[in-house]
């Protein structure tokens, strides 16, 4: 076993460093029509009419696609509620919602055409842009109540209200109760590759290309929408150039599909970066936390209300709310909890999945409140967490058990940051713990072909968007089959070639698809063993299977050698299949227990320039309980990357709106993410590996852990350095300065 646990060169790496890798925008289709979206520069408007005559005159424009070109009633789609129209119907509900689309022979002509489409509209006053707006008694309704027949909440902007909890919080006795409300801003994924979509009619069906993370979900949705069998819908999904959740759910594929079917030609839409800002974001939130403690700092109850503002269409955000709220009380021993989570719609761009899936938003509030209690009770902020931390196998949420030695993770982080060491002036430290549930259901299939010459091909429907799925599946296959890592090809991204995979999300792939790949390899091994038994005239029971080997009564022989013997002289291959299924559990509020938990402890030391409010992260430590690092370099890269991304929403990222709901800072100049010059002076990511996960070799999932509690670790450090408490992210220099001024005037 020498590939698993090592860090061989990344699968697909060669293409990435030579420029030969084909991302979606690099794929050239013959006779393609370029598509440009038509949008309005307002947040809310009633569409009165669309005049396409000028646009149609532009040389090269093939047609202008409007709601009139779509079936009636307007097709709507969405993974939970089918609320999103293919094109805005009668009304736009957010700044940037497309009202029409132009198809042309060249990009220039499409752009020209889009400028000449005349939309006659009536701006609508006001709108729902904040949670207060949404919940006001006279609030405008963002969605038509008729879309939710029989729903008692249909006449509100609350799409759903979830209640979780255990015990009776009112029966608990607390010596200290702390309560406060925290805000998490709207931020966007800003993958360096903007979303892209192509469609072409194909032999009684349709071919689709998309940057999508869930090709099979797209296939299913489009088959249903277009009335086609799955076999007639082919989705090709090249490795996305960054996803982070923003490419999970279909967005403009339906539009492009309808356009291609109308045109009888391929259609191509690649968004500009600016357009992605108006297409995807994280659900923003207001989190109210009320926690009761006894005098020793032990939690007596958690009373948490999470209000998530999800945008005009729900997309997957309702799941974000449910899943994160369920675990809102955190990785602690909590005798009683009451949690209410709300999915609230607004006249803003729709939110979708984003790394962390609601946990960063909730943890921001909950962890800062732990610090508040520690400060008031005079207990060390590390100590209060150690006292309350759930221990291995604790049923810390009903039906869920702590699946790791989390205390170990916390102690390592504390040690690395030098918790308790003296600090220079203007420096401060913070520490926080966070937890995210892995997938609650799952279904992954894999096929592995061991070829006659000892090379292998692995089929895995996971999307490799940089987390390195390709590489680890090759590592697993190489070790299980005894094949050279460099001789394993991993095939992904084509629903007509690769068997089904539910989706790539929730850090699931190393556990779910990893298991499927491993089982497919075991299937290959078993088939080889069966043929060997016949070939050598041995009893089947006398052959043992080990990684890459068959152990015969008298000797060990490599799997490949046996294959070459038993398949000679014609050659051929051995094909194995594997499946990993985690079924839905109807008795569980989330549809299933978590396959594993991503547990993380983040500790940060900052220095604050009290005159300007600038925060410099001196040292940032993140430790995750990963089970096993299949590829340590990839794990570290993901952890570093997640931490840096977390520093983004902590220190500088946010959408800025005007008071009419339009986004003011679209694009790279005024939406700030971390550059190479903004890194912590010292960044340290570490993994705890106790092989206690459900996946191959004891792995759990990784990739989200390190941004779960970046904000409270840094927020606590800023408070430690300055005494100023900030409840709204991001902690821009101006915000920090304002908090310092406020603290000064209160003193």
């Amino acid at each position, binding site marked *: 076993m020498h590939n698993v646990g090592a860090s061989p060169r*990344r699968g697909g790496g060669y293409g990435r460093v030579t420029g030969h890798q084909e991302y979606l925008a690099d794929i050239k289709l013959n006779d393609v029509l370029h598509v440009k979206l038509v949008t309005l520069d307002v947040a809310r408007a009633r569409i009165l009419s669309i005049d396409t005559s000028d646009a149609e005159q532009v040389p090269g424009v093939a047609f202008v696609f409007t709601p009139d070109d779509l079936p009636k009633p307007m097709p709507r789609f969405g993974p939970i509620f089918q609320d999103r129209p293919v094109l805005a119907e009668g009304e736009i509900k957010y700044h940037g919602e497309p009202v029409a689309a132009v198809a042309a022979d060249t990009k220039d002509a499409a752009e020209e055409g889009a400028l000449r489409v005349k939309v006659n509209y009536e701006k609508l006053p006001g709108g729902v842009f904040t949670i207060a707006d949404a919940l006001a008694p006279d609030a405008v309704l963002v969605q038509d109540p008729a879309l939710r027949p029989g729903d008692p909440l249909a006449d509100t902007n609350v799409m759903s209200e979830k209640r979780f909890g255990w015990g009776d919080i009112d029966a608990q006795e607390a010596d200290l109760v702390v309560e406060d409300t925290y805000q998490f801003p709207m931020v966007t994924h800003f993958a*360096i590759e903007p979303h892209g979509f192509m469609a072409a009619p194909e032999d009684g069906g349709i071919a689709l290309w998309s940057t999508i993370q869930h090709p099979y979900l797209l296939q299913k949705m489009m088959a249903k929408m277009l009335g086609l069998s799955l076999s007639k819908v082919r989705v090709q999904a090249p490795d996305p150039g960054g996803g982070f959740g923003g490419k999970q759910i279909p967005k403009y594929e339906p539009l492009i599909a309808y356009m291609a079917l109308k045109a009888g030609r391929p259609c191509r839409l690649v968004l500009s970066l600016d357009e992605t800002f108006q297409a995807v974001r994280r659900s923003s939130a207001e989190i109210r936390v009320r926690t009761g403690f006894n005098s020793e700092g032990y939690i007596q109850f958690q009373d948490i209300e999470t209000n998530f503002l999800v945008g005009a269409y729900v997309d997957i955000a309702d799941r974000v709310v449910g899943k994160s709220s369920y675990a809102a009380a955190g990785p602690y021993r909590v005798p009683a909890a009451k949690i209410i989570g709300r999915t609230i719609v607004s006249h803003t761009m729709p939110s979708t999945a984003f790394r962390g899936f609601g946990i960063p938003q909730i943890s921001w509030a909950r962890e800062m409140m732990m610090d508040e209690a520690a400060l008031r009770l005079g207990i060390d902020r590390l100590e209060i967490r150690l006292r309350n931390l759930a221990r291995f196998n604790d049923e810390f949420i009903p039906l869920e058990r702590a699946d790791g030695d989390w205390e170990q993770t916390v102690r390592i982080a504390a040690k690395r940051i030098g918790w308790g060491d003296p600090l220079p002036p203007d420096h401060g430290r913070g520490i926080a713990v966070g937890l995210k549930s892995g997938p609650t259901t799952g279904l992954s299939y894999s096929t592995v072909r061991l070829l006659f010459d000892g090379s292998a091909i692995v089929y895995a429907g996971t999307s490799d968007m940089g987390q390195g799925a390709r590489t680890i599946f090759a590592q697993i296959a190489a070790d299980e089959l005894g094949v050279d890592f460099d001789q394993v090809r991993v095939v992904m991204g084509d629903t007509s070639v690769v068997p089904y995979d539910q989706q790539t999300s929730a850090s699931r792939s190393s556990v779910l698809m990893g298991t499927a790949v491993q089982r497919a390899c075991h299937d290959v091994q078993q088939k080889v063993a069966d043929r060997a038994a016949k070939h050598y005239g041995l009893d089947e029971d006398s052959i043992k299977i080990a990684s890459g080997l068959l152990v015969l009564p008298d000797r060990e022989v490599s799997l490949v050698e046996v294959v070459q013997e038993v398949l000679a002289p014609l050659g051929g291959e051995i094909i194995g299949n594997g499946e990993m299924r985690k079924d839905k559990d109807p008795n569980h509020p989330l549809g299933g227990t978590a396959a594993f938990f991503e547990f993380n402890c983040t500790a940060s030391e900052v220095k604050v320039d009290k005159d300007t409010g600038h925060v410099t992260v001196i040292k940032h430590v993140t430790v995750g309980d990963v089970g096993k690092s299949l590829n340590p370099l990839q794990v570290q890269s993901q952890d570093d990357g997640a931490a840096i991304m977390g520093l983004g929403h902590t220190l500088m990222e946010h959408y800025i709106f005007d008071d009419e709901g339009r986004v003011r800072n679209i694009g790279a100049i005024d939406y700030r993410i971390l550059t*190479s010059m903004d*890194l912590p002076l010292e960044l340290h990511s570490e993994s705890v590996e106790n092989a206690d996960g459900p996946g191959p070799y004891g792995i759990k999932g990784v990739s989200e852990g390190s941004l779960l509690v970046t904000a409270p670790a840094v927020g606590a450090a800023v408070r430690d350095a300055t005494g100023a408490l900030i409840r709204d992210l991001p902690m821009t220099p101006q915000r920090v300065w304002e908090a310092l001024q406020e603290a000064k005037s209160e003193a």
Partner: protein
Amino acid sequence: MNTMIEIDVTINGRPRTLEVAANHTLLEMLRDDVDLTGTKECCVVGECGACTVIVNGRAMNSCLMLAAEVDGAEVVTVEGLEMTDDLSPLQGAFLDEGAAQCGFCIPGQLMAATALLMHNQDPSVEEIQEGLAGNLCRCAGYEQITKAVMAAARGAIDA
């Protein structure tokens, strides 16, 4: 004066004569006219560096240059880094250090790094971070990228 301009430009060592639209950028010319799609399009305002190419020895954002401006110039794109039969030491270092995750920013990072090493064979970590400060990476593989550039520089010095 014209809306279509004829230019002579050397791309990755190969002299070409091309007719380009006056209102097309160098980025569009590379990706659409000469089919070199290794150079990527992202922010198109000169902030992200995904479109970085080397023109006459200097790293530049091809999204902010009109195609006509490279008449008479030498342009190197990521496709021009490979040596016959092998990756350049810098490309190899990027693979060894795990610098490429999703990979979309990597062509730009490679070009900025190549230009840096052309002018500074022994850069410090700070100099590398500054030299690549115009290349955004959302996977945030900055540390791995910096290490890779350092390794390539060291490798060239030690060789």
